[in-house]
């Protein structure tokens, strides 16, 4: 297979090129100038300081969720419920922000803890549904994502609606003390960067250097033999889910406390699903995760500017990243395929070539 060799040499140019070609065709189909459009996207993400800070501010919660997903993916879990865990983190943080009065550092600490509990709870339900109810985490997670969205809409239009009447758009802005201190009137909060560095370091350490990380790997690679080695699949599954849920919860808190200043209708902005794509595109290599998440954040922010400027739907950013991930999933691992085949049956591989 010369194609895969060629692919390896030119990595990661080919998937980027593939997605650029695909989106160019789409843009041409809509009568838009592709070069101008991509220019608008780049300007939208790095055109001036405030735009770059927006990319940073969008990147942080996505990276928090991606970091959590590294743990669940290691344990072999498809935590699609991460989206709902982000939303529940946001809801829990908003609850504290709306109902509690305290000095700012204390209040923020309580908000973060509540967010971790909210995200963790939503994740633990998925975990228990899997271990006790044998409901696959994809379905449990998906149902809980939708329930979290419905709960948010209920809160916004009901108990937490602003005093001047519900608009279905969001709660009233939180008190100033509840918000994360932001950098130069942007949506970027330096404290959230500290959160993400701690989380990333913690995950890096526990996956590469602890017994727990080893157990998760065993569980992810082969649940049956892990069981015989004395790894409790129920305990590790729920722990991994809790860990990821807590990080996703912090991501939700960062969304309400620094990206917005209130609980909004689509509070997550699809960050959970994007985080799943990030980890898949990184092919579970931890150091690629921040880089890819940053790239995604730039693309998504850029596509919003594209929509403002050209009236083209901002889903173009999602298409760009989606095609890239699809391409990598289809062709990125062909080397491994070839290796496996060669080991198993040399002659047939040779014949086929």
């Amino acid at each position: 297979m010369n194609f895969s060799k060629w692919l390896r040499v030119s990595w990661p140019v080919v998937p980027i090129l593939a997605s650029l070609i695909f989106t160019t065709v789409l843009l041409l189909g809509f009568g838009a100038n592709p070069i101008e459009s991509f220019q608008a996207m780049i300007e939208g993400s790095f055109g001036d300081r405030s735009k770059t800070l927006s990319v940073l501010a969008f990147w942080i919660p996505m990276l928090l969720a991606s970091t959590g997903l590294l743990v669940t993916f290691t344990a072999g879990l498809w935590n699609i419920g991460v989206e709902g865990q982000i939303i529940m983190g946001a809801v829990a943080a908003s609850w504290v922000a709306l109902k509690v009065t305290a000095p700012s550092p204390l209040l923020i600490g309580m908000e973060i803890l509540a967010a971790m509990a909210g995200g963790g709870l939503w994740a633990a339900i998925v975990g228990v549904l899997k271990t006790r109810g044998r409901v696959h985490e994809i379905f449990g997670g998906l149902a809980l994502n939708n329930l979290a969205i419905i709960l948010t809409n209920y809160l916004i239009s009901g108990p937490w609606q602003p005093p001047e009447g519900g608009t279905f758009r969001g709660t009233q802005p939180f008190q100033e003390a509840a918000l994360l201190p932001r950098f130069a009137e942007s949506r970027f909060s330096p404290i959230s960067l500290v959160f993400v560095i701690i989380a990333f370091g913690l995950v890096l350490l526990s996956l590469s250097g602890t017994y727990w990380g080893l157990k998760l790997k065993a569980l992810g690679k082969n649940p049956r033999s892990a069981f015989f080695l004395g790894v409790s699949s129920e305990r590790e599954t729920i722990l991994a889910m809790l860990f990821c849920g807590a990080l996703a919860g912090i991501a939700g808190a960062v969304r309400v406390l620094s990206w917005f200043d209130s609980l909004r209708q689509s509070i997550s902005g699809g960050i959970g699903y994007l985080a799943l794509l990030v980890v898949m595109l990184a092919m579970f290599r931890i150091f690629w995760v921040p880089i890819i998440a940053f790239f995604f954040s730039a693309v998504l922010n850029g596509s919003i500017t594209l929509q403002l400027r050209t009236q083209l739907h901002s889903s173009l950013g999602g298409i760009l990243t989606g095609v890239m991930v699809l391409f990598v999933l289809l062709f990125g691992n062909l080397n491994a395929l070839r290796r496996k085949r060669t080991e198993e049956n040399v002659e047939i591989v040779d014949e086929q070539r």
Partner: protein
Amino acid sequence: MNNAELIIIFSSIILQASPLIIAVCGETITERSGVINLSLDGTMLMAAMTGFVVALKSNNVWVGFLSAAVVGMVFALIIAFGSIRLKQNQVAIGFVLTLLGDDLSSFLGQNFTRIPGPFIKKLAIPVLKDIPILGPLFFDQNLVVYFALILVVFTWWFMFRTRPGLQLRAAGERPAAAFSRGVGVNRVRYLYTILGGALVGIAGASYSLNIKLGWSDGHTRGLGWIALAIVIFGGWSPIRGAFGAILFGATKSLATVLQRRYPEVSVVAFNSIPWIMMIAVLLLVSSQFTDWLISVMPRRLQRPLHQLLKVSPPMALGTIFEED
């Protein structure tokens, strides 16, 4: 509530359930052959959008349905090619296609949102429609509903009563044994993944051209996932799956009725019903609690209850088969 009202409600339930029935039949065929097409939600969105736009442009609903089927086949082909030929993770590919289909449908359909277009007309079947109760329920509908109902029976007959159906199930249960008996396992899997995809595409278009007319951003979002859950609840049988689809269709009608009766309860409470039910039905068919419940029943009831409640997936579902 009198009988006439009940009949109207039940016939609307069957109408509401018809696209789900078609999608569930399609995915059941695919999964019975051993392949998971997880992209249903994205496929249905793309198919709903394409079906509507093509029907609008050509002014012909059937061309719309055809184009939707082609969209479904393309998505299914990517899954089949990725998992069978390239031997990559079909769940991952399906998930990415779900998101991609969602975004693509938003982008491609952006100029066609909230505009009126063609749709399917009612087509009562003479004589049969005059049968009391059954007539208005099953024979006073439109072609999509008739197609869905015939499809259920045909799929069941095909899977369990014909030789190609046996080969289809063998590819999903015991591919190695099937292969040694001369069944081209991967060829079978390609065929039924693509065929199932075509049905999923038709299901998507049945929303935009029959039930939820037109196109809007995220028009059918979530329904693909519900269809996937019904396949499990249906125990990979088209008849039981159709029953599940009707159950979900009923919740939709039930919510409308309840909402009219109790306007003080928030709308959002009713929106949560399908998702709570999704978890509940999956728990019912697979949890250890059900096992326990069956084990404490009188012995005579245990076997029939087990057959009624428990399901088990095709043994080789989601696995890769190496023909060499």
